[in-house]
């Protein structure tokens, strides 16, 4: 893994596609001490390469040479710089080489016209070309990067010929990242479909050292960047680990694709901001009819009746995933696809606590539910949670109520004592069957150890909950599942609640090619049997989703039709999403910034899910008798199955035939 550090606070260019322009404008830069520490720490962590990239042009950083010296002393195998070539001369190149710089990635975004227009500065192309000449002449490992835009796309073949005249190691043609300036200049950016004719034209040229970056192989062929590894990264928000897929998504249609391991996926912001009608062809068919439907629907009903994210008076539940690490390897984990991210720090949690409290205040609610999730949150250690729980019981009069979802494998009496002391309810997942689904990281079954830990939790007089995830392996076992959960309650002297979910195709469940998923018929049968067992037992046992339906209590988040109003997900790096599931999916709304959650949760993008209710209730679900208890189900789960949150839930027959009768049976 290479380490990337974003230095410099200024740039002479103003690229129409600059992905970090917003960060530069926000003024959030790493300090010199942070940068020096990162350089030293990363090599100790085993990273053998270091790249200086920039929130501006890295060579303009006044401490650039200091950093080079630090990097050389630290002993990196290679030290590179991403540069636009501004201000370069032979003396500097030679000096930097003597200071350890060994590689350069030079930005050339077209020929002179296209490049200068793309970066919005005359003379920039000449800078870049000069840099190409100097770095190659001095024996650097030189690469060229070209970001593809509507401005330069007709010049790419000529540019390739130009670049081929130099001894470059590689030439990457990048589909732009849809962030920063890209969102302000969408007219300048290409669509995914534009890659297809370009790839066809370039296929006739020498492609031995050239590849497409951030582009799906189904559009550009096999010449794609296959370095899917994560990078360690430092910017103004601190250190993090970034995966190429972090901002991207795989369509459900991609699950069976033989190229999926090489594929970066589709940029979610592209879909969100430009719309789905210009999505790649293989998902275009899926989205097209939905987009048309939405347009028709909005023409009739305006912009929808929902109030937008975080309406006044709405409760607030924050799902925090402080780590993506896990000591288990469950086959159906929804969090298993992504590369590991950095663990949350207590300092970041402090920011979160202040931010969510401010958001609660804005909503006029006096408390916030904080659900710790993962990964496995207990891997954060007792000291982390002790500081979290003891440090911020409330902020500005807003009470922070904590709960945790854990696999319990690290649980002991000390954890029980800590959680009891702070009245933290503990929920866990369980599978009592020898089906190989819930296993430890080394492949051994979890159940024996889990049972012992559960006993400690139960004897610790904690409020406990247990979740069972139904998969294809559990066909015909619903009654056993019911009685197992029922019997677990015997061991718990205090409150005990249970829930049964069905696995959905995200993370490991998706990567196992849908082998664990229940068909609609199997789902119906499973939950029908489960409901019959619960009903036959007198309905007294708290089993979600049946209990809340029978008592007409508030529905679970996935059924209440306003989940985006009440939930926020935040990961260990401070990235914000709609909820825990959407964190797993990798849909991020933004990051915790200087202004806390405010600008993120009030942005237009966060209100978009609200239109789903109107779209479904007057469209695909218009005639459904179960609408009031379903509301289309979890948008994230639906999207994971069908690729489109506007599709009806694939298990909606279970809603109508099992859950609705329970709801209606209340006297």
């Amino acid at each position: 893994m290479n380490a990337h550090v974003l230095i410099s606070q200024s740039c002479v260019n103003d690229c129409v596609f600059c992905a970090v322009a917003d960060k530069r404008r926000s003024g959030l830069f790493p300090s010199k001490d942070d940068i020096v520490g990162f350089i030293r720490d990363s090599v100790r962590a085993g990273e053998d390469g270091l790249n200086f990239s920039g929130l501006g042009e890295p060579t303009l950083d006044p401490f650039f040479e200091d950093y080079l010296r630090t990097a050389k002393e630290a002993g990196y195998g290679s030290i590179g710089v991403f540069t636009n070539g501004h201000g370069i001369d032979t003396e500097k190149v030679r000096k930097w080489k003597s200071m350890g710089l060994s590689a350069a990635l030079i930005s050339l975004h077209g020929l002179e016209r296209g490049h200068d227009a793309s970066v919005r500065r005359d003379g920039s192309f000449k800078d870049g070309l000069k840099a190409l000449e100097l770095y190659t002449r001095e024996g650097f490992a030189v690469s060229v990067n070209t970001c593809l835009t509507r401005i330069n796309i007709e010049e790419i073949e000529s540019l390739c010929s130009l670049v081929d005249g130099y001894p470059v190691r590689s030439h990457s043609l990048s589909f732009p990242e849809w962030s920063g300036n890209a969102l302000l200049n969408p007219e300048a950016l290409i669509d995914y479909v534009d890659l297809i004719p370009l790839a066809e034209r370039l296929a006739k040229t020498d492609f031995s050292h050239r590849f497409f970056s951030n582009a799906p192989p189904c559009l550009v062929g096999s010449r794609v960047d296959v370095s899917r590894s994560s990078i360690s990264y430092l910017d103004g928000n601190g250190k993090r680990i970034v995966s190429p897929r972090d901002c991207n998504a795989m369509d459900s249609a991609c699950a069976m694709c033989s190229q999926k391991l090489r594929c970066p996926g589709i940029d979610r912001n592209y879909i969100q901001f430009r719309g789905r009608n210009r999505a790649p062809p293989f998902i275009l068919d899926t989205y097209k009819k939905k987009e048309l439907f939405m347009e028709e629907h909005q023409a009739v009903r305006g912009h929808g009746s929902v109030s937008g994210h975080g309406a006044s008076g709405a409760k607030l539940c924050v799902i925090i995933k402080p780590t993506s690490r896990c000591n288990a390897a469950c086959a159906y984990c929804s969090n298993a696809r992504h590369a590991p991210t950095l663990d949350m720090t207590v300092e970041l949690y402090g920011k979160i606590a202040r931010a969510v409290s401010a958001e609660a205040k804005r909503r006029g609610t006096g408390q916030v539910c904080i659900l710790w999730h993962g990964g496995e949150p207990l891997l954060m250690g007792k000291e982390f949670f002790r500081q979290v729980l003891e440090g911020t019981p409330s902020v500005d009069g807003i009470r922070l109520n904590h709960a945790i979802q854990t696999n319990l494998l690290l649980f002991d009496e000390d954890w029980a004592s800590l959680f009891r002391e702070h009245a933290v309810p503990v929920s866990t997942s369980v599978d009592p069957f020898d089906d190989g689904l819930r296993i430890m990281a080394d492949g051994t079954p979890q159940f024996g150890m889990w049972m012992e830990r559960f006993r400690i939790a139960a004897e610790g007089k904690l409020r406990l909950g247990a979740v069972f995830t139904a998969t294809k392996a559990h066909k015909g076992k619903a009654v056993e599942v019911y009685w197992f959960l029922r019997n677990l309650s015997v061991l718990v002297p205090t409150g005990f609640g249970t829930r049964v979910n069905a696995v959905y195709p995200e993370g490991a469940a998706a990567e196992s090619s849908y082998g664990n998923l229940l068909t609609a018929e199997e789902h119906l049968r499973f939950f029908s049997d489960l409901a019959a067992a619960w009903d036959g037992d007198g309905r007294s046992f708290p089993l979600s989703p049946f209990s809340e339906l029978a008592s007409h209590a508030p529905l679970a988040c996935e059924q209440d039709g306003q989940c985006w109003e009440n939930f926020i997900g935040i990961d260990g790096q401070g990235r914000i999403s709609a909820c825990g599931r959407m964190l797993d999916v990798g849909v991020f709304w933004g990051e915790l910034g200087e202004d806390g959650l405010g600008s993120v949760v009030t942005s237009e993008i966060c209100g978009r899910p609200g239109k789903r209710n109107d779209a479904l209730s007057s469209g695909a679900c218009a005639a459904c008798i179960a609408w009031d208890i379903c509301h289309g189900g979890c948008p994230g789960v639906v999207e994971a199955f069908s690729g489109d949150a506007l599709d009806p839930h694939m298990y909606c027959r279970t809603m109508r035939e099992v859950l609705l009768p329970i709801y209606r049976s209340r006297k």
Partner: protein
Amino acid sequence: MIVFPSFVTVSVPSDITLDGDSSIILRIPRKASPESVTAALTHYGKRIRRIDTLADALFDFDADRGVLPTELLSIIEAGLGVDRSRALLIRAGTQSIAALAEFAATYSFPTGSWELRESDSERMRRMLTALGGVRAKVRVAAGPSEDAAASDGDAVLAAADFYLHDPFLATPVEPFHGILGVLARGGKADLHVFQDERRGMNYFVSGNGLISDAARSLQTPLGCIGDGWDAISGHVSNSPGFDAVTFMALRSECAFCPHFRFCVGYFREYDQDRDCSSWRRAFDLVARETNRGAKDLEDGN
């Protein structure tokens, strides 16, 4: 010498005296003398929660005559100062039904508690009828049958059926009465409670001074009355007795059994091969009838 703390209940024979504050279930052996019983009653006083005795200790059924009943009952009544019907448990043996019924009627046990062990279903039904006729409360013992060969496997089911359906029933038959209450009103109660075998809460002291979780676990004692409390209590978590977690973790059929909450592993904690099917059938019947009754109530029937 062990001193049990106040929060535990200890079953102890009347010829052993223990100091401390624990509650006492005083067992009167078959050939107990009035003097020893008097001494025990005096010693334990208000600590006594119940007196357990055998029908044979009160009556010589073979000779058709009382052994000590009048004297013993007088002592009990004087010593406890409470209603004997709530403080006395008589363990029925293999006496004839007629003799048992006559004894119960003659010696004024109209509301006394009786413990019946598994037998054949016909004998169970007749004993219940006889004791019910004198308004005696009954507990069906969950321990192994004293005469396994005589058991037809349906005696427990017969007892549950009697409790649920006998039109003249006027007094409870445990554990079914308690289980019905749990099913109807919620809460928790399992056979360990009905059998005074709650782990860590109930202890059994044998005639020779050994201490165990229960009478049926004397082969694996926790210690003896010469030990200290710390030593005894420290052994409880390692005892082979009640450990519901173990049953669940072993993925035995108990983990998925609809009646686990009523037994919590009671039948198999000392004997993995114990056949509990007769009890499961009885629990099935009680649960089914309870749910049917609940639905009838909901429907206004």
